[in-house]
């Protein structure tokens, strides 16, 4: 993961510094990018095909084959519904719920950087790609501040958040004359503007996030639950924290397309908060939060299509409604579930053999 970032970073630095040096590098990256993009477009084609079938079976107007943008929006929404709560679960339980907001605002700065570079040196990159890079740098920056000062600090997060937004607005105003794209779609998200290219970027982010979490979920859980014990047991806590914030930056930028900068953090937090109310175990809460998020996304996208309202806002409203239901269900559960506490087993004072005492509770 980090090598990708370094490559992209290096490429963008070189591009900014020296055009002659950047050319072969860009060409090399370009070939790899084209192949990858081709594969992703193929995946997208398969998705269209699947959605067409769903349309023929259900007759849902929203899935009309003429509305490819809705198919893409649905794909992006479903991916976001998986990856946001996946990462959000770790963040919420570390009391880092607001880091998503901070990174979204730096993501906005990244969008502005992309638009600026496109306008000034005609780089031709997707603003979402620059948003990923800038948000990940900001994520590392927040993490480094917390490592140096020994605590996650809401002041440092607030500083990064406002710096990001300030940089974004400044760059955009600087560039206002040459900007064809409105800023609104980045601030509030827009179903209709999910291009095949940004859907492809999202698929890459989705794959990176899901695979990384699948590989490191044990370590992330240990670090989330008990940082000191995790460190004693030999885990490099700082390293996993860095992984965590980088993944957060990716989720935030991925979700920004339909949620917008301002609302994106809600997807990291609200479904997780709901799942926490009703789940008993950690794995259950991961699963429930994904289900709740998907529910909110599907209802939200449908409502925004048929009601003609902004998707991001409706999705968040549905998520909050679901959260309220989850709180109510949780209360009912704990009121009714007053099952008698089991007897405390005795400590096996003489047990040397482990298996022997397993059933005597």
């Amino acid at each position: 993961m980090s090598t990708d970032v370094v490559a992209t970073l290096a490429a963008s630095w070189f591009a900014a510094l020296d055009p002659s040096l950047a050319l072969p590098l860009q060409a090399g990256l370009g070939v790899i990018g084209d192949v990858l993009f081709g594969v992703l477009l193929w995946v997208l084609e398969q998705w269209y095909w699947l959605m067409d079938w769903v349309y023929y079976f259900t007759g849902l107007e929203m899935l009309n084959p003429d509305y490819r943008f809705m198919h893409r929006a649905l794909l992006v929404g479903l991916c976001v519904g998986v990856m946001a709560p996946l990462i959000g679960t770790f963040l919420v339980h570390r009391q880092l719920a607001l880091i998503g907001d901070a990174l979204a605002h730096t993501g906005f700065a990244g969008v502005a950087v992309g638009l600026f570079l496109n306008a000034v040196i005609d780089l031709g990159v997707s603003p979402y790609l620059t948003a990923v890079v800038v948000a990940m740098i900001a994520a590392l920056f927040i993490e480094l501040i917390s490592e140096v000062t020994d605590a996650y600090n809401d002041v440092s997060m607030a500083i990064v958040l406002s710096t990001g937004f300030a940089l974004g607005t400044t760059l955009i105003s600087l560039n206002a004359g040459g900007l064809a794209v409105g800023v609104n779609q980045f601030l509030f998200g827009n179903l209709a503007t999910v291009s095949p290219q940004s859907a492809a970027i999202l698929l890459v982010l989705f794959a990176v996030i899901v695979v990384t979490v699948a590989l490191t979920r044990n370590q992330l859980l240990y670090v989330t639950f008990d940082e000191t014990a995790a460190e004693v047991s030999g885990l490099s806590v700082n390293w996993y924290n860095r992984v965590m914030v980088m993944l957060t930056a990716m989720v935030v930028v991925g979700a920004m397309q339909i949620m917008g900068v301002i609302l994106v953090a809600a997807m990291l937090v609200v479904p997780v908060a709901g799942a926490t109310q009703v789940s008993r175990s950690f794995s259950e809460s991961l699963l429930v939060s994904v289900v709740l998020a998907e529910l909110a996304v599907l209802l939200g996208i449908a409502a925004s299509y048929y009601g003609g309202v902004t998707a991001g806002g409706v999705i968040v409203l549905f998520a909050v409604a679901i959260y309220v239901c989850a709180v109510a269900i949780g209360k009912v559960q704990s009121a009714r579930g007053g099952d008698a506490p089991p007897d405390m087993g005795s400590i096996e004072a003489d047990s040397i053999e482990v298996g022997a005492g397993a059933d005597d509770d």
Partner: protein
Amino acid sequence: MTTNNAESAPAAETASDRPTTQPIVDLSNATFGYTSTPVVEDVSLTVDPGEYVAIVGPNGSGKSTLMKLMLGLLKPDDGTARLFGEPATRFDDGERVGYVAQHASAAKEMPITVREVVKMGRFSHVGLGRFAGENGVDSLRENPVGTVSDAVNAVFGRLSAADWEIVDDALATVGMSAFADRRVTQLSGGQRQRAFIARALASEADLLVLDEPTVGVDAESVDAFYDLLAVLNREGITVILIEHDLGAVVEHADRVVCLNREVYFDGPTEEFVESDALARAFGTEARFLTGVGE
């Protein structure tokens, strides 16, 4: 006890397999300060395998800092700290150390079951590490399909059946089997500490380090908790206990280290009770503690 049950965990080394001659903890003239004022000054101390050592001292005496130096979470400004013979900060065989902190007071509102907490003790054992070296090559030759699927499981951090057995055994040892599927937030302080001990047991640690583990735990559970520690120590686990409750220390530990920036006393518990180290280390506070040892 898990540490002696090598059959159920063929992949895991156990305490009895290891040479026991070197001290587990070895601090030599260690000095550390968060600022220029040292919190721990010129502390030399060794802990041998099988000992039950209590570290006592007034608030702010550097007990927790000393523990962090021992575990390699901090690096001494001066002097050396060694853990199992290696420089403590570079020690990475984390499965040998179990750590139990003051969790009872800091309840996290996280949905997680007791079994999931205990399972964390196995995390340092899962992973590709267990396939490294000659064992991996041999098992690949004997059972290629099984080994590859085990390796895939290991990459994705899945616990093997043997790991789960160790988790269940650890739960049984601390008497928490019936609570395995309960949410940790629903437990009392004492039950929660038992769960954390079980996690340390599941990691098959040789060394158990406890930082004021009974703060916020009800009196009955405290007794049961110390009984458990005594049992574990008898079975060969080295226990280092950082404790505020001097009564408990005098009753349970074999050796006491009395700390207030420097070591005021280091020796058998009986001698500690008779010495004036307490008065010197605690200063005026000792007036309230004179009942100790009666």
